């Protein structure tokens, strides 16, 4: 019970006549990275919204960090953080002001110190006093994730965190996610990029037409397929490899 960050049993949700979730079950272990895979419209965001108390579900038991989302939404909100599909930063405010605002709303003492630490950790110190509207897509995402880390929530939801990012930005986000998991934070990730799930996740669940059709570790999922055959093919570099080789994956950006 206590080593589960998320427990979902028989979750159903409909919008009027449209059945989006038709009985979803899964569990997420504390401290792991869990990836929910699915194509557009599969219901990924609906699940995230239910787990983050933004949406009420119809039927089923949903527990987050041991708290029921329906009867104890306040406690759930206290223990989670959401990074939605669109970078939810206030573009008129500076990076620093954004972080201070969130720290104040989480009623933490010393918001300035918290903001400074996160700005440094996400290499945003130089841009700290610029309006977020002047940030690049990657910087915006970094600020967005930094805002989610204010107050060190136990569980972080990342809803398609790399959509719209260039390859460098995407690798940066991956690095952050791995660091988060190393520090003991549970990460719930949704994505439509298979590679992303493969790179990051401890466990993967595939959502299709409102149901989880497969779930398990990557090794377990691979076992579902017939054993690998040895074939000889000419290996061409992918465009991504070419791009990164020329641009260089600069760490100190």
């Amino acid at each position, binding site marked *: 019970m206590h080593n589960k960050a998320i427990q979902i049993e028989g979750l159903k949700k409909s919008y009027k006549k449209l059945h989006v979730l038709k009985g979803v079950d899964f569990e997420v272990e504390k401290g792991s990275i869990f990836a929910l895979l699915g194509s557009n419209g599969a219901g990924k965001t609906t699940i995230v919204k239910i787990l983050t108390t933004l949406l009420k579900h119809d039927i089923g038991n949903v527990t987050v960090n041991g708290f029921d989302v329906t009867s104890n939404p*306040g406690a759930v909100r206290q223990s989670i953080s959401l990074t*939605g599909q669109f970078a*939810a930063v206030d*573009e008129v*405010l500076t990076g620093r002001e954004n972080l201070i605002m969130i720290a104040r*709303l989480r*009623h933490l003492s010393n918001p300035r110190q918290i903001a400074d630490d996160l700005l440094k950790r996400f290499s945003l110190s130089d841009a700290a006093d610029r309006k977020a509207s002047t940030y690049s897509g990657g910087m915006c995402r970094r600020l967005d994730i930094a805002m989610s880390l204010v107050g060190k929530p136990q569980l972080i939801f990342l809803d398609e965190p790399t959509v719209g990012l260039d390859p460098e930005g995407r690798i940066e986000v991956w690095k952050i996610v791995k660091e988060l998991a190393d520090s003991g934070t549970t990460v719930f990730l949704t994505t439509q990029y298979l590679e992303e799930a493969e790179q990051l996740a401890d466990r993967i669940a595939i959502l299709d037409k409102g149901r989880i059709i497969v779930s398990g570790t990557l090794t377990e999922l691979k076992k579902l397929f017939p054993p690998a055959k040895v074939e000889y093919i000419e290996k061409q570099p992918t465009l991504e490899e070419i791009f990164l080789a020329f641009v260089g994956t600069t760490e100190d950006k």
Partner: protein
Amino acid sequence: METIKNYFFSDMVVMLGRSMRHILRSMDTILTVTITPITMMLLFVYVFGGAIQTGTINYVNYLLPGILLIAIASGISYTAYRLFLDLQRGILERFHSMPIARSSVLWGHVLTSLVSNTISVIVIILVALIMGFHSPAGVLSWLAVAGILALFTLALTWIALIAGLSAKSVDGVSAFSYPLIFLPFISSAFVPTNSMRPVVRAFAENQPVTSIVETIRALLSNQPVGNQIWVALAWCVGIMVVAYIFAMRVYNKRV
């Protein structure tokens, strides 16, 4: 739940601080809000004013209350716009997934609307003073005027929040305020109603703007306000309560 309730005021202060920064960093919104009413005031006083018979010597004095209402009606459309952007950009979802008092988000917008409209009302009164506006009214009358304008702002702000919450596009957000801006034209704000055609006159004399305008005008010129002040207050409070209930209903449905 109770620990969350206790934070209502501190959360609201954070929200107020946030949207006040929005206003101060886009001074053009204050300019757009004040410049149209000021231009109208110049136009009516120096161009049309000579031909308008109001029975008063100083047309600026006659005109000012209506101009202030127009300024507020166009000011609140920015409140709707800011709320709409919050919804669109996902920042509202971030706030709602946090342990804060949810209604503080709306109240932050309401207070900001009150502050920004106060600024534009003061700017317009200053311009009116330069144009020859003068008032024998004492402190109490001015306070009463401030109170009525504040109530009017609150009433319209809650309407604006409904628009901001339910609009599908940016154009839709601002469209709702046009009728509100034009309402003062079909009232006693610019010309006495007895010069109007019977049907128009009946509408003009019974719509909220007329009673509000007449009350403010009476207060500013030290005339007895009579029953008009109660009609004006009833309109403001009535609109505010109905709009508040609707806005809250839409808000709770959205979240």
